[in-house]
């Protein structure tokens, strides 16, 4: 009886060892197959990338890079030119405006147009035949939509009794815009405003 039960136990242990060995062998085989598979796939990918790289070089050569760089440069030039023309400014309408906006009894003795910190600044000095003429000039400039913060200062009488003055104002970019001057509507309406202001005010 005892020898029978120990025989059964031995058979069970052997069966258990065989089962464990099978599992271990299966896992080992799977890990070797996996390793070979990954290695093989890497080789395939490297070969495939090499082939595609060659095909891409051929395609790049066929695209004619010189022609493309010529097109790219023209595109950059057109885009830049458009942006420069949009922001292009012209000073000549300013002279026309000042000429029309100056009453007869006012003369300007200096002119300075400049860009200061991105703002358009106009500095003028002049002489007026009396304070009423200067008041008329100030009224025209103050009513103009194209001057921001117009300031008349340094008022002094000279030897002839004329009033010397300085003027400083920030220009509205619309007055000196090239695209605005091409249409000229805004500028012409501003001139009309200056002319009507002069005719509505009492003459000196």
């Amino acid at each position, binding site marked *: 009886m005892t020898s029978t039960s120990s025989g059964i136990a031995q058979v069970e242990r052997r069966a258990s060892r065989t089962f464990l060995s099978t599992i271990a062998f299966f896992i080992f085989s799977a890990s070797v197959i996996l390793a070979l598979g990954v290695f093989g796939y890497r080789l395939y990918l490297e070969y495939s990338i090499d082939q595609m790289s060659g095909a891409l070089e051929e395609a790049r050569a066929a695209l004619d890079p010189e022609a493309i760089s010529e097109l790219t440069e023209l595109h950059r030039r057109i885009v830049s030119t458009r942006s420069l023309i949009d922001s292009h400014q012209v000073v000549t309408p300013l002279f026309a405006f000042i000429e029309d906006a100056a009453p007869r009894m006012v003369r300007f003795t200096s002119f300075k*147009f*400049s860009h200061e910190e991105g703002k358009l600044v106009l500095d003028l000095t002049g002489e007026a035949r009396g304070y009423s003429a200067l008041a008329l000039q100030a009224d025209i400039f103050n009513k103009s939509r194209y001057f921001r913060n117009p300031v008349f200062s340094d008022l002094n009488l000279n030897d002839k009794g004329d009033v010397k003055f300085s003027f400083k104002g920030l220009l509205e970019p619309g007055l000196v815009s090239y695209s605005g001057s091409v249409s000229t509507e805004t500028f012409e309406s501003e001139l009309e405003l200056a002319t009507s202001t002069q005719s509505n005010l009492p003459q000196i």
Partner: protein
Amino acid sequence: MKNKSPIILLLLSVALFYTFTNVEYKKVTGLQAQANDYKDILSNVSDIVRFRDSLLLAYEEFPEEDITRINRVLPDNVDAVRLALELDSMASKYGISIQDINVEQEEEDFSDLILPENSLPYQKVTVSFSFISSYDNLKRFLSDMERNLRIMEIKSLSFDVKEDATLYEHELAIETYWLKE
């Protein structure tokens, strides 16, 4: 020995995975991404070729004269001497002689290297000079500059009007541009 062989096999499997398979797998992931990029690019090549052909066709329809003109609007380099010559020939039409020409080139902005998308595709040069002319000729000269094919931006202009004088001395600074490389 027989009892230990399953354990040895399991240990070998783990070692193989960590020392070889896992390392190779990481390489494969990178290569797979690279291969996908190549596939995408190659599949777009035919579209790019079609697009390039349509652009070349449009480019060929541009009159040669217009191309020359747009190259003059924004030249490839500043060419200060040619610029001075251009200004002088414009001025001489009105009997104006340009004096004291000073060319000041804008320095390279190295912040472009940090934010290249904010950089301008063109560079600027400031040219300042003085001249003597009548008021009417000044206006004509300025008008020519403002409408010149090569863009010239008037940055500053100043002059004094002397009593009983017909000619005045003017100080003028203009900005002009050229296309960066």
